[in-house]
């Protein structure tokens, strides 16, 4: 009953969010015009010769080609980063793990900017695409962090966080260096984009890779809910429950790098979504992954959609990088979480 209510509430929140994101922005488009455009395009999409009037061309472009792909990308990126946060936290059994903090995002940024600015050797450059380059950068970064943090039989959380911070800094300087030394005059844009994260200028075609990776990643994590639950108790217990622990860990790392890479390639490094949302979700509904994964996805999606709406409306007619806002909300939260000391997902 409670789950049904929660699902209904989240669905309602999702609709309200998309509605708000379509209605507000720098161009003055009235609510009525915004929904006229959506209704017209949806009817048109179903091949129905629409009974509606052809909408105002400017309103149509603003709502259907600028705001809608952008809010959909915000939902995908927020949801994807949030469930990857859940996966990382199960992997290291600590709520402080997150793609941004563990250096995956900055590794992906470095990979993407290396590709974008043409600094890869020609043979490698032709074989890769930007999401693939971002994936490889993120994978490299998290592998190094994981190997540094893994001592003998267990993972040291202090080492994990320190290694994550160090790799983030290293990868951010790689990004800064290649953008600084690039002959491209747009380098300032590139460095800001990949260090701060932004959803500005999203087009429909940008949605393909984020959708494919985020949707399949979330479904996979949902299917793996029981093994993930077992991981929270401890690797040894999970092993005795018949779970192939090593294979699962490798799968989670690969998945985190893949989804983060695809998201960073289109949205830059947006931090702290994967930290705040899973934590809040666990406080609300407990630690069972069968519920945490879907609710964290929707929660992250909502959070980033609102953050992006703020990013494009705080300064009238101008754009702010959305990563600034997620960091403004996320860092105090992170510090509070550190201050509270270890919390073991309900089990000491």
């Amino acid at each position, binding site marked *: 009953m409670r789950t049904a209510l929660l699902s209904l509430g989240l669905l309602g929140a999702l609709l309200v969010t998309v509605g708000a994101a379509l209605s507000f922005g*720098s161009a*003055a488009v009235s609510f009525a015009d915004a929904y006229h455009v959506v209704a017209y395009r949806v009817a048109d999409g179903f091949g129905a010769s629409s009974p509606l009037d052809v909408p105002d061309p400017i309103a149509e472009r*603003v709502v259907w080609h600028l705001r809608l792909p952008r809010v959909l990308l915000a939902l995908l990126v927020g949801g994807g980063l949030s469930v990857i946060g859940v996966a990382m936290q199960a992997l290291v059994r600590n709520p402080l793990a997150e793609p941004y903090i563990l250096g995956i995002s900055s590794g992906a940024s470095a990979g993407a900017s290396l590709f974008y600015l043409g600094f890869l050797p020609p043979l490698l450059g032709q074989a890769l695409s930007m999401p693939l380059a971002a994936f490889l950068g993120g994978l490299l970064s998290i592998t190094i962090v994981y190997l540094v943090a893994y001592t003998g039989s267990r993972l040291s959380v202090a080492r994990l966080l320190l290694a994550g911070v160090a790799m983030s800094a290293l990868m951010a300087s790689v990004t800064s260096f290649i953008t600084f030394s690039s002959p491209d005059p747009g380098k300032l844009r590139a460095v800001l*984009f990949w260090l701060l994260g932004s959803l500005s*200028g999203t087009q429909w075609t940008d949605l393909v890779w984020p959708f494919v990776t985020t949707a399949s990643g979330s479904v996979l994590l949902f299917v793996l809910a029981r093994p993930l639950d077992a991981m929270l108790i401890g690797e040894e217990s999970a092993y005795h429950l018949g779970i192939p622990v090593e294979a699962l860990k490798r799968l989670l790392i690969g998945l985190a790098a893949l989804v983060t890479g695809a998201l960073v390639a289109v949205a830059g490094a947006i931090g702290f979504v994967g930290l705040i949302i899973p934590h809040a979700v666990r406080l609300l509904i407990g630690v069972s992954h069968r519920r945490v994964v879907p609710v964290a996805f929707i929660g992250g999606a909502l959070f980033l959609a609102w953050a992006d709406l703020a990013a494009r409306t705080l300064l009238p*007619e*101008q754009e702010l990088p959305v990563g600034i806002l997620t960091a403004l909300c996320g860092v105090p939260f992170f510090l509070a979480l550190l201050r509270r000391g270890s919390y073991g997902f309900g089990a000491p």
Partner: protein
Amino acid sequence: MRVFFRFRVFNPLAHVWVLLSFLLVCAGCTDPEPSTSPLTDALDRSVVVPDTVTRVVPLAPNLTELTVAAGGGDRLAAVTVSDDFPPAIVDPLPRVQTLPVDYEAIVGHDPDLVLATDQVNTPDDAAPLQQMDVPVYFFSFNAVTDIFEGIRTLGTLLGTSSQAEAAADRLTSALDTLRARTASRDAPRVLVLVGDETLYAFGGPSYVNTLVEAAGGRSVTDHFETAAPTLSEEFVLDAAPDVIIGLFGDDYDTRQLARLHPTWDVVPAIQTGRVYSISPDLVSRPGPRVVQGAYRIAALLHPDLDLPAPPALIE
């Protein structure tokens, strides 16, 4: 082994020599300059500039152009790595890096005066040079008149006042002429862009809006409170400019802008093909060539207007 030993024996003596020569050099540099006069620069800093300045290092390309316009081209001791104009003067000169400031290289050129602008460097950047008794004079260019005034100031600093006054007067009257010629025309709505993908533009405090207005246009971004706003795509759809002028260089393919922003197909400038790209140096570099920039914009806004050639102060 023997060589190594000898080195160690001689080492203390070498130290003494280095120390002695260092003291001598320092004694030399604390000697007051022959004659000096304290001045106040654009940032209200007090700068002591020697009466005769023969070696100048500008820390930004626009300061080089202004120095040349003020008649001080022969005083340039070095220019920045970004300098490219006028080629006949800057190409043979040694280069220094200014972002971050390469202090050693600058001091190595033994300047009497270093010129800086708050658009590139901060007064903190100047402190190490001041410590080494190299005066740093700051300029600040917010309005077009600041640029002309800068030429006059440089004339005073370099002792080339008559040349500098003449240059500033010619530029002022050339801009006035342009204003008079375009005054009777209908002013199209103009959007000037610095970036084609991320939409950096010029807000109200920027002198670029003055250039557009002198060229007989109306800037759609002059109501922004910041000098360099990042526009949203929706804003451009809403503002519906008649003309878009990108500072992307003369070789830019202007169809690229429509490719990057497919929703702009309803913007008048895109529909009528009035999208142009010009050299950023004529507009975004606050130097003597902004007047040429204004004439170039006027020729794009009012192609039927028969304009005289703008004054070329630097050949």
